[in-house]
């Protein structure tokens, strides 16, 4: 599973600043550097959708180093990965005192919690509890201005 490295190697030949807004770029016609930036962004998105965070982080670092991903975009993606890797038990104590706090999920990260929701796996917690856990993790990163 190292084919993204080969892809990056090819793309690295075209070096340019990709400072445009993600989302907007999808609407613009693919040409030159922009198309390559779109490909990298799509590849990172695909890795993240498959929960392959280590691979996504490596691709973000390398794409950012060669200018295929703008620094703010890279920082934003890394912050998202950090949020997905946050365990429920790592949020501030005050938030853990919320009513009906699902403490059985304390050792689970946001991505594990979201995966349980995706898979319809309610063996450890109910859907309501999973949602509550996800909201609390997101709330602490928001309140701290991390995302």
């Amino acid at each position, binding site marked *: 599973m190292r084919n993204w490295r080969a892809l990056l190697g090819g793309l690295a030949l075209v070096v340019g600043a990709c400072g445009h807004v993600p989302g907007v770029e999808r609407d613009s016609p693919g040409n030159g550097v922009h198309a390559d930036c779109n490909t990298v962004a799509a590849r990172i998105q695909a890795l993240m959708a498959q929960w392959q965070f280590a691979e996504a982080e490596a691709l973000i670092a390398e794409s950012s180093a060669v200018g295929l991903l703008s620094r703010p975009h890279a920082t934003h993606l890394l912050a998202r990965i950090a949020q997905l890797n946050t365990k429920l038990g790592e949020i501030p104590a005050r938030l853990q005192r919320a009513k009906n706090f699902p403490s059985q999920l304390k050792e689970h990260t946001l991505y594990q919690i979201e995966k349980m929701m995706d898979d319809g796996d309610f063996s450890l917690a109910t859907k309501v509890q999973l949602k509550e856990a996800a909201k609390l993790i997101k*709330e602490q990163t928001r309140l*701290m201005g991390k995302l």
Partner: protein
Amino acid sequence: MTHLRLDEMIARMRVAREAGSAHEASPEQLQRLRELARDCPAFTPNLLELARLLRLTDEPGVDMEQALAEIERLLEQAVQASGRSAPALLELAHFTDVFRDSPGLAEALFEESAASALRALENSWAGLIDFWTLERTNDTLEKALKLGELAERVFPESPRILHVVEDAREKAARAGLLPRNED
């Protein structure tokens, strides 16, 4: 009763921040912010800052319901004092979504916050397009045209946007930046 001057309020917020941190408040920091909220109940930045820190700080001897009641009161005060401004509404929306079991109310607050922010954006864009148009250099006219395109897509029904965009196009056409007849 003598009122605090605005620069005094800002200075008191700064002193409070220096007595603690941005993410987990010290007891002195909370005390200072609470005193300021009592002295200036309409000073929204302080209400929002105190409400934020109270969600991140575990105060010994204060149970969760008590803390949530104080946070909710501060956020409602901020909404009222700010004339239901988008940032205050957004904070109350998040609070309601995460800590109060009322998804209907949370959704309504998010929607009201978005509507308020959109009104501000519509007026800000109209102001900026008009400002650039009045500057009348090729550079500013081009900026006005570019923002005008985006503004028309986001606010297709807005008479205010329509007005300033048409104005910008007329001036750009006279400056030779646009063909006068677009047929």
